[in-house]
């Protein structure tokens, strides 16, 4: 293995509310290696790479590049040192073309350079790097995979020596993900380094040269990738809780005949005037979990938003509890006891500038004139305990939490809220394996025990197979199915996702 290129020494970071994100973490990134950073939610993985990328500043500790101490106080400085980050959410501006988006971050061009010249340069470079991107395509037309490809291309154009992938590959389909990993391996072989944050341990074992494990802000160990065993890694990440991880199919529900969520020839318009949902017919019965598989950007977001009432339906009908709720607004649907875990949790799922108690009160006591805070705090405390949310107390602001813990706050209040139905879009996004297993179990229990009709949209096919009683595939706004999970071949479902 080659030399240490970057050393993060004794890095500590606390957030408002006294949450310790990192506690004297020392870690190195070697030239030509792929380093995986693993850890449960709130372990400090994202904080560490954000400090290296200049998005956060460390309270204590220092960063060395090639043995020389450096100050990285913003991303521009990080990029100057050859460090580029690709996050889970593509940072492209939808209204601009790929070339225009990429030109924004490049210093190679002056303000007077024609976009045609930039586009040709990008085309040439993308061929050189083996990435197929059309520089003239508008960003909104790109699939999620293509957007992440553009982000990778941006990193290459910025002459990255170290690429930080903060869950950047989490939502890519398996086949696409393999291509990305191959690309990253080749990048490392050419002398680059990559730091990957993921919750998928098998993938980390497959791709990483070394695996660093963080737990509650401390580095608990570094294992050579080739020698690591998944059980050992899980034990280091979760301690005794590792036994709770399961991908076994959960017990099937016994759906009743009554239809709770039903759509008839549903058409929904997307953000750019296109037909995002095209003639969808769907039925979720009482006590049933229906899973919709599909690659992000195929109309799932528009479908779930239309069902909850956040997006207008252009054609067709929606029935909740056999009542026509088409275009009647969110309040009507919510009043009926429908929980909603949105695709964009930070926008529609929670208000991070408010406390956990306030977020719960906004949902549960929006109709009351006065708020019963003792009841709300009691509920918040029980959710915090049940879902093991790492938060000082119910009055703490959500913004002090890690991404995974924010997600747990969103998921817990909605699973608890639903009475007749739950519309869940990627309910385990950003959750570690233990938390994800717990959330899937809770969802299934609500369906089996309380007869809640669950519509679960997920890009994670393992999750769909584990929880669903019935599977659909969504592609280009159309719905294929239903398929019984015991009979539906995985290869067939994957094929439908990409055709």
């Amino acid at each position, binding site marked *: 293995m080659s030399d240490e290129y970057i050393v993060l020494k004794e890095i500590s970071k*606390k*957030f*408002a*509310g*006294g*949450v310790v994100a990192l506690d004297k973490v020392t870690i190195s990134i070697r030239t030509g290696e792929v380093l995986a950073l693993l850890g449960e939610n709130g372990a400090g993985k994202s904080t560490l790479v954000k400090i290296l990328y200049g998005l956060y*500043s460390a*309270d204590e500790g220092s960063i060395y590049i090639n043995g020389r101490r450096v*100050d990285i*106080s913003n991303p521009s400085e990080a990029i100057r040192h050859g460090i580029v980050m690709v996050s889970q959410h593509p940072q492209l501006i939808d209204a601009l073309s790929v070339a225009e988006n990429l030109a924004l971050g490049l210093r190679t061009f002056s303000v007077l350079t024609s976009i045609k010249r930039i586009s040709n340069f990008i085309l040439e470079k993308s061929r050189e790097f083996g990435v197929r991107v059309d520089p003239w395509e508008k960003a909104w037309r790109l699939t999620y995979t293509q957007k992440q490809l553009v982000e990778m291309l941006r990193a290459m154009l910025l002459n990255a020596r170290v690429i930080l992938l903060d869950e950047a590959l989490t939502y890519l389909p398996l086949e696409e993900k393999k291509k990305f990993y191959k690309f990253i391996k080749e990048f490392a072989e050419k002398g680059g380094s990559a730091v990957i944050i993921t919750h998928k341990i098998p993938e980390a074992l497959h791709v990483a040269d070394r695996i660093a494990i963080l737990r509650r802000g401390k580095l608990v160990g570094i294992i050579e990738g080739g020698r690591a065993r998944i059980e050992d890694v899980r034990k280091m990440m979760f301690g005794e809780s590792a036994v709770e991880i399961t991908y076994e199919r959960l017990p099937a529900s016994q759906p009743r005949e009554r239809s709770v969520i039903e759509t008839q020839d549903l058409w929904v318009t997307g953000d750019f005037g296109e037909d995002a949902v095209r003639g969808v017919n769907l039925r979720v019965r009482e006590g049933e979990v229906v899973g919709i598989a599909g690659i992000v950007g195929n109309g799932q977001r528009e479908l779930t938003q239309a069902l*909850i*009432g*956040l997006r207008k339906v252009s054609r067709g009908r929606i029935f909740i509890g056999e009542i026509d709720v088409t275009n009647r*607004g*969110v*309040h009507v*649907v*919510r*009043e009926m006891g429908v929980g*909603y875990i*949105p695709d964009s949790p930070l*926008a*529609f*799922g*929670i*208000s*991070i*500038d*408010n406390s956990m108690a*306030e*977020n719960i*009160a*906004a*949902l549960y*006591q*929006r*109709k*009351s*004139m*006065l*708020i019963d*805070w003792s009841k709300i705090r009691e509920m918040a405390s029980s959710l915090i305990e049940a879902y093991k949310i790492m938060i000082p107390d119910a009055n703490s602001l959500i913004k002090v939490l890690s991404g995974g813990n924010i997600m747990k706050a969103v998921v817990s209040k909605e699973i608890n809220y639903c009475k007749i139905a739950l519309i869940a879009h990627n309910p385990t996004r950003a959750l570690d394996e233990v938390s994800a297993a717990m959330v899937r179990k809770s969802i299934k229990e609500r369906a089996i025990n309380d007869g809640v009709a669950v519509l679960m949209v997920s890009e994670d096919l393992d999750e769909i197979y584990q929880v669903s009683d019935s599977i659909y595939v969504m592609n280009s706004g159309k719905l294929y199915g239903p398929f019984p999970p015991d009979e539906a071949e995985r290869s067939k479902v994957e094929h439908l996702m990409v055709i």
Partner: protein
Amino acid sequence: MRFIVVRRTRSHPYIRPLVIVLSLLTGMMLVAILLTLIGAHPLATIVAIAYSFITPQVVKDMVLLTMLGCALLISFKGALWNVGAEGQLYTAIIPIVWITLYVAPWSASSPPYQSILVTLASITAAAIFGAMWGAIAGVLRAYVGIDEVPVTLIMNYIAYYLVNLLILGPFRGRYVYGYIRTDDLPDAYKLNINVVMQRTGNAFIDGFLEFIRVIVYYAYWVLAAILVALLTWIVFNHTSIGLKIKILGSNPEFLKAVGVDVRRTIVMALTLSGLLVGIASATYYLGDLTRLTYPIQAQTAGYGYLAILVAWLSMLELQLIPISAYIVSSLRNAGRNMQIFGLGGLESTLILLGSILLTYSTLRFLTEYEVRVVK
């Protein structure tokens, strides 16, 4: 050794008032230096400013600005920038003039309880008018999508000219010796308590007694300010509308997703804000202004605009509203005193206000960040 700026891990308990005091001191020093450059004695400048903080004149402005600051806080918390308190203040006076001079004018034969009924009716009507004036901006923002800042600002001028029209027309006084103004508010309807204090000759004791006299004079205002502050506290800490307004300011998308009518919340926030301005307006008119003089835009003390400063200075914290109201009142007072002390004209006042606001804008980052020295 180097300096790094890091976000505070936990809020310092006294940092907000500390930043305000520090800004004041730095701003005063800056003004003293600037005025020294043009020939004024620095000590005289500091004395003139410091004196303004302890004179009884600040009481009136402070109490009124506390009420108006609370009113604006209601909308500001929801990221609704109501800059129309000035217009709401004068609109709310219209029904008071009508009630006190035309509906139920006081006469020698009026029963004693009439003054109580008229006062209560005036306050209620002022609150309703203030609320309605605020609601117009709310409806335009919520249902037509017009930004509330230009709307509330323009509505200040509409209010001025509406009041002018009334003074020139139906409200023009009969006993005004040729002036263009309304008749005086009858004494029976005035909300103030006049007490005469015997002078002792001791400057310290007399100063203290004068403070007492002013506080007693504005006792109704103090009560109204406590009521308004209490109402604001209840709204934000115990009501669902208060919570909705707070979330409206931080994440309206979330509010929509939980099934709250965001448009109604916007209207409610601006209506409530206007309602509290109306209550403040009633106390102001019944306790101090007592008549409207043409043209109103040249006569106004600009409390509606100063209230924006009060709310901003408080960092949208209710408990800091009285402190920032006190500071703004004192600075207003300081401007007058500096002119009396011969330390320049209006420009000195503006330099003083500007310097303190500049240092405040710079130092307020300390509330969320701290500067550390790293070796």
